[in-house]
């Protein structure tokens, strides 16, 4: 009877073992597990789960195909809407999206949609990915700025529609946050690479080492013959707290800490040329997914103690529940209602301690969360060797600064229509974190998808003129 049995647990590496290395923590379902989990789906006539999916996957459809033991069909249904299923199956916050709406979840545990998505995507990868049918080739050219989740999704969808798509990536490897930000143990880079290879096979030209705003501006791309431009440059500007001592050695932004580790493979130093230095006691400031990634990475780089320092309480932590649990299992310690007010260092400028202040919770603030109020006189000092500041990222200003006429928000994000990604400039669209501020992979993908649709409409309207 569907729904009556509990959801099949995800096999994962033992915490004591896994924190010694960077191999993937969650191991994935076997075919038997997937079949059993798929049997829990009610195959609702009016599926609520689909409404919770930013990229509109036919969820009951692909789960039914698993039950029918037609995995090729399941993969086809997934790929019809989602160009990066192996990524989404791993990093989407399903518990607040599709699975939050699952009818089975009302009385019991929802169907494990994310785990099933991952199972199908991994199965397909092992078989060798097949390419979808593409629309006949069109003459029109689209430039995509940034190859993160938003840019890759827009690129893939536009290529499927027959457009000539070029993606410009600033770093030496495409993938954006999927490559530099999310750690190997949560999202293996070989998997991201294969998803990117798939997008290349769709005919998308990806150019790396290409910083738009430097080698060419958006306007120069338009003048060069691109008919439309999509900006998906993400939230690439690390926030600091601007407190005394924050520039001491050993205090990294989360972006630097994770980029050195993930993109540059500093955990294989000196075989790989990029170093990273991690002391015995590491403090990560913030409690979002990036903070959890940093705290768990620190353990893998040899930290004996890894702390999450957060000024609110557990209930307000923005990270996914699963990430918090994984961090806790691995031994990450949580210092809540606490925040640094200053750092102190030695004569070489290396951080040696932080001054922490205690907080209590007051009335809910604009975000709806109870606001943290510092307790006067509660400051105390704690010895620390390494600090990672993970309190969010702002929009990278390189593209906005070099694109005249682009209307920005007060925070410097690009103003764009939520449904179409249309900016204040004709022919220029934007989506993902550069518009919304730091959010999730899947929301960026949703924005890329909607923008692709709007760009298609816009380019068709040009043809009629």
């Amino acid at each position, binding site marked *: 009877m569907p729904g009556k049995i509990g959801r099949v647990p995800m096999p994962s590496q033992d915490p004591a073992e896994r924190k010694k290395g960077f191999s993937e923590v969650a191991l994935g379902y076997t075919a038997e597990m997937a079949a059993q989990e798929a049997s829990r789906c009610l195959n609702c006539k009016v599926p609520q789960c689909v409404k919770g999916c930013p990229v509109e996957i036919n969820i009951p459809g692909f789960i039914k195909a698993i039950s029918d033991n037609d995995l090729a069909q399941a993969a086809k249904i997934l790929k019809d809407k989602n160009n990066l299923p192996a990524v989404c199956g791993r990093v989407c916050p399903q518990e607040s999206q599709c699975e939050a709406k699952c009818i089975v979840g009302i009385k019991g545990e929802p169907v494990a949609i994310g785990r099933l998505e991952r199972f199908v995507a991994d199965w397909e990868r092992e078989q060798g990915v097949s390419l979808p049918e593409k629309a006949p080739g069109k003459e029109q050219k689209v430039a995509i700025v940034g190859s993160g989740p938003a840019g890759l999704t827009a690129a893939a969808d536009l290529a499927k529609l027959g457009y000539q798509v070029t993606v410009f990536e600033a770093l030496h490897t495409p993938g954006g946050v999927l490559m530099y930000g999310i750690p190997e143990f949560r999202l293996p880079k070989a998997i991201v690479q294969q998803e990117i290879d798939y997008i290349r096979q769709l005919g998308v030209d990806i150019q790396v080492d290409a910083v738009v705003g430097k*080698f060419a501006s958006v306007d120069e791309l338009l003048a060069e013959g691109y008919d439309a431009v999509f900006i998906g440059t993400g939230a690439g500007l690390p926030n600091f707290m*601007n407190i005394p001592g924050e520039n001491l050695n050993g205090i990294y932004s989360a972006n630097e800490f994770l980029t050195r580790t993930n993109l540059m493979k500093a955990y294989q130093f000196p075989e790989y040329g*990029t170093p990273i230095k991690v002391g015995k006691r590491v403090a990560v400031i913030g409690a979002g997914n990036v903070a959890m990634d940093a705290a768990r990475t620190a353990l893998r780089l040899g930290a004996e103690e890894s702390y999450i320092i957060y000024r609110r309480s557990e209930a307000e932590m923005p990270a996914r529940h699963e990430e918090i649990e994984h961090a806790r299992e691995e031994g990450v310690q949580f210092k809540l209602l606490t925040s640094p007010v200053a750092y102190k260092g030695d004569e070489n400028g290396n951080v040696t301690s932080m001054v922490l202040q205690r907080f209590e919770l007051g009335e809910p603030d604009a975000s709806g969360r109870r606001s943290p109020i510092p307790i006067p006189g509660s400051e105390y000092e704690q010895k620390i060797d390494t600090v990672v500041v993970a309190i969010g990222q702002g929009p990278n200003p390189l593209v906005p600064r070099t694109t005249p006429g682009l209307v920005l928000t007060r925070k410097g994000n690009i103003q764009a229509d939520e449904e179409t990604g249309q900016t204040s400039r004709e022919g220029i669209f934007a989506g993902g974190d550069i518009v919304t501020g730091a959010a999730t992979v899947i929301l960026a993908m949703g924005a890329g998808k909607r923008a692709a649709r709007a760009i298609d409409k816009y380019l068709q309207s040009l043809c009629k003129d």
Partner: protein
Amino acid sequence: MFSIVRKENLAANLYLFEVEAGRIAGKAEAGQFIIVRQDEKAERIPLTIADFSREKGTITLIFQVVGASTSKLSELEAGEHILDMVGPLGVPSEIENYGTVVCIGGGVGIAPIHPIARALKGAGNRVISIIGARNKELLFWREEMRAVSDELLIATDDGSEGRKGFVTDVLKEVLEKEEVTQIWAIGPMIMMKNVAEATKEKGIKTIVSLNPIMVDGTGMCGACRVGVGEETKFACVDGPEFDGHQVDWELALQRSRFFRAEEQQSMEHHQRCGGGACRCREK
């Protein structure tokens, strides 16, 4: 892949590469830099653009061997390739007609000062250039600098060429007889600090070009934080040029030393395993 079309060994441990990089050459301006990643396992390192030719689509890099990455880079020959090169990065020098300007290049800093002097000369300034090094063997580009300067002065620590002493000594003499509006100084951090100190009380604006530790070079990581006045700036996107009188030199020096032990370790690894002569597998 970026092809090296010319390699010169300018002095001991000092190399020049002219590299095919049309996209960068097309946009490069004086004062900007690029980031190089030599191969799949290499670090990303920032190098200032010493020259560029829009016609040929090439840029010229001059670098000193200071660690494993630059040592490995110096082993490449003309005809070989660099895997990744990205740029032009950073804000170009603010070039206008200031009147009389002084351009100071110390050691490998002679390379990046060259296009700045050229641009300033082109804008109508009277350009006095001062180049210096420990000894004459480490000096280079005398003719190139002379061609873009109204006057070229030389200093060496040991007196083997030009005036015996530091570039700051020469600068002090220049400032005694010339009405100088603005100064650019590029070279070792300690030289830039000394120049800035020498000009501070005279109130002559002194621009320095910082080369801190960087990773992405696009403002994403904040490794290159520098204290400028009361603010923290990112050298990669806000710089690399800053007002030398505002720079927190102590912080800059400390931050530049953070990975010193790892640099040593990397060099040892390179000497043991680099250059195709790895002996670790012989065991």
